[in-house]
């Protein structure tokens, strides 16, 4: 088994090879004789499945090791080394990354399979799978990277794939604009990441710039630098994981194909920020101030996007805002130093949100790309499997007791309460109620009541098995994943938390069992109230209301996009055109213009002497001679 470490390099390599092979095949053949979709589908699934298999092998291997030494490092080659900076292309498997590895490859594989059905008959079928494989490879690099720089490779790689896949149907300008927005906003976050990495390097990076060395050197960092690094890295996380103020790209990212939304913009990529904060737990736990900032930003994001989510009518937008909201929970979790709770929520969220997206995808597929929930209704008879699985997903998302979301969310809220962040806890409970409300609003409007548009309803049909089987598998996960981290009061052993413990630096706060139960009851009550209100309003079938007042404000997302557009985008463009139209020719170029003007003016001035009569030129000559003579006469006597 000593070769297990060398598998680490192979895990991201398989999907990357898949991406290159599929990409080349597609690139060379798409114009003249496109290859059959089955070939692409098979090729595309090989890489993720192999990676999943290796991930299991690595996981099993780690499990066989003593808890304190559970890490495998494989440095494939020296990536670059300049001066003190030494970056290995190295991969690290420890409990944290192996957990991420497992579910990323698992869900990734499922979504690849699902996509074969969803993307059928698309003319760029091959391109889609090339990008998907590339994404998975990058995500795995992100997860496995042994240091921040290698992580950054994956970090940017997934951003690129996100861009490519959002603008996948690129003939529609809106899709491309959404892609641009995603990439640019991500890049703003990346700026924070790069700056954070740089400061971190100059502070403690000379002794090795990988997590293990950094962890060892972390206590020597000065508080000012440490907090700065934490906050800068969090800016990066905000960009990638769609937190205030950089969340705006994620709802727009729904322009991509639905499997993309499920895989990238719900289950895996967007949680990278949470993962990164957990990876740097050795740093964040040193500086609780930075952690509090993270937690507050997280919970406020959760609140804000829950408000937006209540008023949306596009099924994918609702899910997108719920994703942002859940990401906010995760940050609240890691912010209050409950890293394992945050990561556990990442884990459960991956299941139920992927499930919900894929279910939404099935609905959309069945209704021929209709996404407006006010044009659906009564679909539970037409799409029974989709309905059942989505209902499980919705219950998990809402945090209904005993479903996976309940345990993970509750763990976070309880940690917040226990560490004294009462405000965060209160908002969190409130948002839990809102989550339940908007989730079930969606479920009721889509599946219950009467069909609102008869024509699309009649054509609706359950999608093929290649799409429903992943739904069922995910539904099982969404329902039961919570069991893995069953807290003590349910007789569980917090398996995930214990598994993650060696990778993370956290202390489990303890309060009396009574407080724990009370806190749990509070959130359950909130959830039940939320579902009840949703049922009251929409359970019996409702007509599309006119948005007024706050609802309208919420539907238009507080006009944040418009404000950003007015405050950042337009001034940026305006500044650009001012520079190129005005400043460049008139100010920057002024020294050149001035000297050429001077030459021209001097020329015009001296033109007076060029009368054109030769004898006048002779006079000039004689005047010169005469001046010379005057001068020379002085020197002779």
């Amino acid at each position, binding site marked *: 088994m000593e070769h297990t470490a060398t598998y680490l390099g192979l895990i991201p390599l398989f999907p990357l090879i898949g991406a290159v092979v599929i990409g080349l095949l597609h690139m060379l053949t798409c114009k003249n004789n496109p290859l059959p979709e089955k070939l692409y589908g098979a090729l595309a699934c090989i890489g993720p499945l192999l990676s999943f298999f290796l991930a299991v092998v690595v996981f099993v291997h780690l499990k066989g090791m003593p808890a304190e030494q559970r890490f495998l490092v494989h440095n494939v*080659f020296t990536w670059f080394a300049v001066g003190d900076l030494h970056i290995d292309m190295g991969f690290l498997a420890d409990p944290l990354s192996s957990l991420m590895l497992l579910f990323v490859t698992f869900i990734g594989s499922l979504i690849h399979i699902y996509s074969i059905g969803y993307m059928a008959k698309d003319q760029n079928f091959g391109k889609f799978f090339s990008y998907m494989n590339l994404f998975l490879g990058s995500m795995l690099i992100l997860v496995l990277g042994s240091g921040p720089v290698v992580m950054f490779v994956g970090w940017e790689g997934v951003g690129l794939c996100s861009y490519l896949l959002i*603008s996948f149907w690129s003939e529609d300008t809106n899709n491309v604009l959404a892609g641009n927005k995603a990439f640019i906003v991500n890049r703003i976050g990346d700026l924070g990441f790069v700056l954070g990495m740089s400061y971190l390097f100059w502070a403690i990076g000379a002794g090795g710039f990988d997590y293990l060395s950094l962890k060892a050197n972390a206590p020597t960092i000065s508080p000012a630098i440490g907090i700065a690094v934490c906050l800068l890295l969090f800016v990066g996380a905000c960009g990638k994981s769609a937190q205030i103020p950089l969340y705006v790209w994620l709802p727009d990212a729904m322009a991509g194909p639905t499997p993309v939304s499920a895989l990238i913009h719900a289950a895996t990529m967007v949680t990278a920020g949470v993962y990164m904060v957990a990876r740097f737990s050795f740093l964040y736990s040193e500086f609780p101030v930075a952690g509090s900032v993270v937690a507050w930003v997280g919970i406020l994001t959760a609140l804000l996007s829950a408000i937006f989510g209540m008023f949306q009518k596009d099924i994918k937008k609702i899910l997108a805002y719920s994703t942002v909201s859940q990401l906010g929970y995760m940050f609240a979790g890691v912010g209050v130093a409950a890293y394992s709770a945050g990561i556990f929520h990442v884990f459960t969220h991956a299941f139920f949100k992927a499930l919900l997206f894929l279910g939404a995808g099935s609905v959309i597929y069945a209704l021929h790309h209709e996404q407006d929930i006010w044009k659906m209704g009564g679909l539970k008879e037409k799409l029974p499997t989709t309905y059942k699985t989505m209902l499980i997903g919705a219950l998990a998302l809402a945090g209904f007791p005993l479903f996976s979301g309940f345990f993970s969310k509750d763990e976070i809220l309880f940690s917040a309460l226990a560490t004294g962040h009462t405000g965060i806890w209160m908002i969190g409970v409130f948002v839990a109620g809102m989550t339940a409300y908007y989730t079930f609003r969606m479920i009721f409007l889509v599946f219950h009541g009467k069909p609102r548009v008869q024509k699309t309803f009649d054509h609706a049909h359950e999608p093929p098995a290649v799409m429903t089987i992943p739904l069922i598998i995910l539904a099982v996960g969404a329902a039961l994943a919570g069991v893995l981290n069953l807290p003590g009061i349910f007789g569980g052993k917090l398996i995930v938390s214990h598994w993650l413990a060696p990778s993370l630096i956290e202390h489990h706060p303890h309060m009396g069992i009574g407080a724990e139960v009370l806190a749990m009851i509070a959130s359950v009550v909130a959830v039940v109230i939320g579902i009840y209100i949703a049922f009251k309003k929409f359970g019996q079938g409702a007509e599309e209301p006119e948005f007024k007042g706050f609802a309208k404000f919420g539907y238009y997302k507080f006009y944040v996009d418009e404000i950003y557009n007015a405050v950042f985008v337009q001034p940026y463009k305006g500044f650009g055109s001012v520079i190129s139209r005005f400043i*460049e020719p008139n100010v920057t170029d002024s020294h050149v213009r001035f000297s050429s003007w001077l030459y021209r003016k001097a020329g015009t001035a001296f033109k007076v002497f060029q009368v054109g009569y030769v004898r006048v030129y002779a006079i000039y000559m004689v005047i010169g001679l005469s001046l010379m003579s005057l001068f020379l006469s002085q020197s002779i006597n």
Partner: protein
Amino acid sequence: MFDYALSFMIFLPILAGLALLLLPIQKEGARIAGFIVSVAVLFLGIELFIGFAGTGAMEYVEKRPWIESLGISYSLGVDGISLLVLMAGSILFPMVFTLFAPRSKGYYANLLIAQGAMAGAILSTDLVLFYIFWEIMLLPIFFMIGLYGGPNRLPATIKITIYTIAGSLLMLAALVYVGVSYHNQFGQWSFDIVQLSQLNLSGGFAVLAFLMFMVAFAIKIPLFPFHTWLPDAYTEAPSATTFVLSAIMAKIGVYGVIRFVVPVFEVEFARFALALSLAGVVGMMYCGLAAIAQKDMKRMLAFSSASHMGIIALGVFCMNVQALTGALFQIAAHATSTGVLFLFLGLMEERMQTRNIEDLGGIAYRAPIFATFFAIAMLASVGLPGTSGFIGEFLIILGAIKFSGFIGFLAGTSLIIGVCYMLWMFQRVFFEKSNSRTEEFQDFKLSEALTFLPVILLILGMGIFPQPFLKRIEPTALLQIAQLTNPPHHQLADKTVLNSDQHNQKN
């Protein structure tokens, strides 16, 4: 024969270019001849790269006296500073001959002469020799833009020529000052850079001379605010010439700063480093912002190129080994990414007779191979990890943070600024709906694809395995930085004066 490899790299293209001018050859023949010569140079370059030991000192040295009374010698050498610049030139040059419809033989002759002169400027270790090649370099550029350029080529030609000549004349004056100072301090003439680096210059004249050198190089780089010739010249030049300008000639400006200014003016350089690095980042941001407002794709790429040069220059001014190595690496990376984008653009222009961004669209569907190659070069240019662009940019930002947090932050904004205009352009040109013009866009011919394939592989290779390149640069960069942080001592100078006194008495 290998002892004279450097001379071959310089004079083979120059002589071939002159021969082309004299011989009665058709344009197709000239093109093939040029290709053969540049491939020969490429092989020499690869041999050189493999044989390069990376000790930090000059290698493949050739030295023979030339104008002995003034201590000017014909001396050539390669070290970590010049290696990648040279390689970028020799690897990318053959492409220029294979792409595009054939033009007149004078064009190819000029390209060859430009190649030789650039190699000469890169390889010279004597200041006067460098100056001579530096000036020769401009000549073919003048002809190529002036004779074969776009509709507004004449103002552009005049601007670039006068601008750069003004800079070079300043440099000439400063060069004389340096030579005379050396003579005053050591009692003998020399323009060899190794000997000049022992100079102790101080006082107002030293600052003046330093600024004159810097202006000359700043114009060539071009550093803000001396970049205004660039958009015009890049836009009007034929695409292959723009490529040569952007990929190689601009780099020689940066190279000149590292090779000749830093060793001679250590004190002044350190004193002005902050201001200069500010010029670098401001130029980066300024040109990046200007790029987004361009309608002409070539002009946009021109601004983008200027923007990147700002970052590269910043790497030189940060005075630490990461930034300097990053800048030297980025020189090659930028040549393979942004430089090559000009070639892509040239092909597009040849196919569609327009480079107006608004007239284009939907090319990704018509020409998947073209779009993929273009996208890879573009991503390298915005510094995506895994491509060559990332390593250099990351090292420069890292070094800039050490130098000054504020400058580092501004440098970091290049991550955002670059992406904004590039994506904007990519959206309008490659995505969206195709129109009647782009409907018939031809994908790469086999020959074109094969021409670009090595570069694309190089972009990825340099991004994934940069260490073979960095390993060769780093020792020299370390030496350079060490010299900057501890300037040479006076004792050394006294000793040399003694020696030269004896020398004088003998005469």
